[in-house]
């Protein structure tokens, strides 16, 4: 074997090795889905490349403004959905390339930043606004409380869970409830964050607990496929509530209506449960992959549009999506897209707002599912 052929052989071997090893060493891309909020006639959506918060007129789809905490992004970006409170809007933002993570308050009319407050880790869930205080949580389990106008930390406030908090805190009538990836639901004292009660359930929770006012019961889904019903005042599990369980994780919030609970799961099913017993109602679960006989998952929470329950399912193999209106366990209409929809749809009046993973905002008629205007943030700015 000549010197030349030997070197060629070595070069090919190294190239081969390099390709395989570089495949091993590739960094993960942004690993979340864009937030979507509709408030006061304005849609707040994370879209575009580079990603920004876009303010879009909810009626016409015309861009009204945008906000970005940084002039250029360098790493993986993670955004929370926007929360609007008072005159300001609030969004969690992180850029791994710049080591930036925090809550940003901006003027929705001008897109100008007002203040920012740091976080020790990424913020996944939407902040909560109540009584001039903004609560936001990070992936290290911290729940922060800051003044809504200035961003100053609330004096005396401190709370840390044992794992990430990926669910928005529920702040209602002076009560604060938090569910965490540490398998615990907490009720906290609103002034200090002190734990009033803590209930450990069988799985991690990435969904906000939802309060049924009439029953004073919290409902929350967990990664073990269960839905838990807790008495809001004591945290005790509701006796007699026994859901048979989904075949995969429950990620999203439970929808509480007058006579049923609706739950979606990563097994692609939409469940309807009796609020008292947890029994699955007749005609359910609705199998989102049933018509096409394909494996699907539903990450997005179910939302109500009139008499219909709206569920957004993603095909496991091809990542295409179907947004379906279901009534009494039967499909009423379906809107299809070749993009994935992981974000909770939002219903305002007779319009459903849906955003795909790549930031394409689409409106649908709530009655018919017919597509209306769409919007996408600019790319390459």
């Amino acid at each position: 074997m000549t010197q030349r052929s030997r070197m060629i052989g070595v070069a090919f071997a190294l190239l081969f090795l390099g390709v395989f090893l570089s495949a091993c060493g590739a960094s993960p891309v942004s690993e979340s889905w864009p937030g979507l909020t509709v408030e006061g006639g304005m849609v707040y959506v994370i879209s575009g490349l580079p990603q920004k918060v876009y303010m879009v007129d909810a009626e016409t789809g015309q861009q009204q403004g945008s906000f970005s905490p940084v002039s250029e992004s360098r790493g993986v970006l993670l955004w929370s959905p926007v929360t609007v409170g008072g005159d300001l809007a609030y969004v969690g933002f992180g850029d791994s390339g710049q080591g930036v993570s925090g809550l940003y308050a901006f003027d929705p009319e001008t897109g100008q930043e007002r203040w920012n407050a740091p976080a020790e880790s990424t913020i996944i869930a939407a902040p909560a606004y109540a009584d001039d205080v903004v609560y936001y949580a990070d992936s290290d389990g911290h729940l922060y409380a800051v003044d809504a106008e200035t961003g100053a930390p609330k004096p005396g406030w401190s709370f840390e869970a044992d794992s990430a908090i990926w669910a928005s805190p529920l702040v209602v009538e002076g009560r604060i409830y938090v569910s965490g990836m540490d398998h615990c639901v907490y009720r906290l004292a609103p002034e200090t964050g002190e734990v009033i009660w803590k209930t450990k359930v069988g799985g991690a929770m990435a969904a906000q607990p939802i309060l049924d006012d009439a029953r004073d019961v919290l409902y929350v889904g967990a990664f073990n496929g269960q839905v838990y019903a807790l008495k809001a005042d004591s945290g005790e599990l509701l006796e007699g509530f026994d859901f048979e369980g989904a075949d995969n994780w429950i990620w999203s919030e439970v929808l509480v209506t007058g006579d049923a609970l609706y739950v979606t799961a990563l097994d692609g099913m939409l469940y309807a449960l009796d609020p008292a017993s947890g029994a699955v109602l007749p005609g359910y679960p609705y199998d989102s992959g049933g018509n096409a006989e394909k494996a699907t998952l539903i990450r997005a929470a179910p939302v109500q549009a009139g008499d219909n329950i709206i569920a957004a399912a993603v095909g496991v193999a091809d990542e295409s999506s179907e947004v379906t209106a279901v009534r009494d366990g039967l499909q009423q209409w379906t809107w299809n897209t070749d993009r994935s929809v992981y974000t909770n749809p939002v219903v305002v009046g007779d319009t459903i707002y849906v955003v795909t993973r790549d930031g394409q905002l689409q409106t649908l008629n709530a009655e018919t599912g017919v597509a209306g205007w769409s919007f996408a943030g600019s790319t390459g700015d």
Partner: protein
Amino acid sequence: MDLIGDLFNTAILQPMLNALLWLYTLLAGQFWLAIIVFTIIVRLAMTPLMLPQQRSAKKMQELQPRLKELQKKYGKDREKLSQEQMKLYREAGVNPLGGCLPMLVQFPIWIGLYRSIIVALGYQPLQLVDLSQNIYAFLNSIISPQVPLNRYFLGMDLALTPQLLGGLTYALPILVAGTSWLQTRMTTPSTSGDGGAGGMSQSMTMMMPLMFGFFSLSFATGLSFYFIISNVIGIVTQGFISGWQGLKFWEGFSLTNLFAGGAKATTSEGTSTKQAEAQPTASQKGTQSGSSKRKKKRRRKR
């Protein structure tokens, strides 16, 4: 490409991932322990493939004296030397690339394990969604309650890279490169390094560990952990098969030899081949004397 991806997921990723997760549930929620046990299991499973190569490496060591003779005889004719070397390998039933082939065969396993670690230790939302779709249904009830997994070992996040973690985690790529080199050194003893398939093998066994070490800067530390454990097992196994001489890397070591395609190896008898080369044989002395005499004769004729 979708078909290849689906095949990879079904045949490699999901079995490895679920095995890791199941071990995790058995081992008190310690992922680093699951990696160690999994590594041992993988090495045991690879034994039918690795053992012949390791025995071949031992035969290679025993062939060294005969290879040296061929080098002396055909040193100037590289093509002939290569032919005679390959003939010798064939007769003896050894493969000069023996140290490299097991490494190449393990590539799909490494890629599968890398993906398994990333999927299992997902710390961002879509990564967890991905995890949920790759857990076997019959294991879901015991694995799902464990999510999110404990991905720390000695304060080190097994899902992140040394580049992100910094500090002492930079020792991991060094350990990956070092143990890889020691293992390949033991399984691929050097030939003369000059010409032939042996020279190419020697270059690769030097460069590949270095490449591994370099690229492991970008690996999840859990994967580097696997490499180190796997290499140590390989070193120990090879040591029992062909002796521990290959571990004495300091004997005959020089940077020049390191990159010239032939670190000076020791024979199984423990004598340095460099020392053996330095002493001319009687026939060489005779040849040298004869040639100098002929030169003198030519000068006289002029």
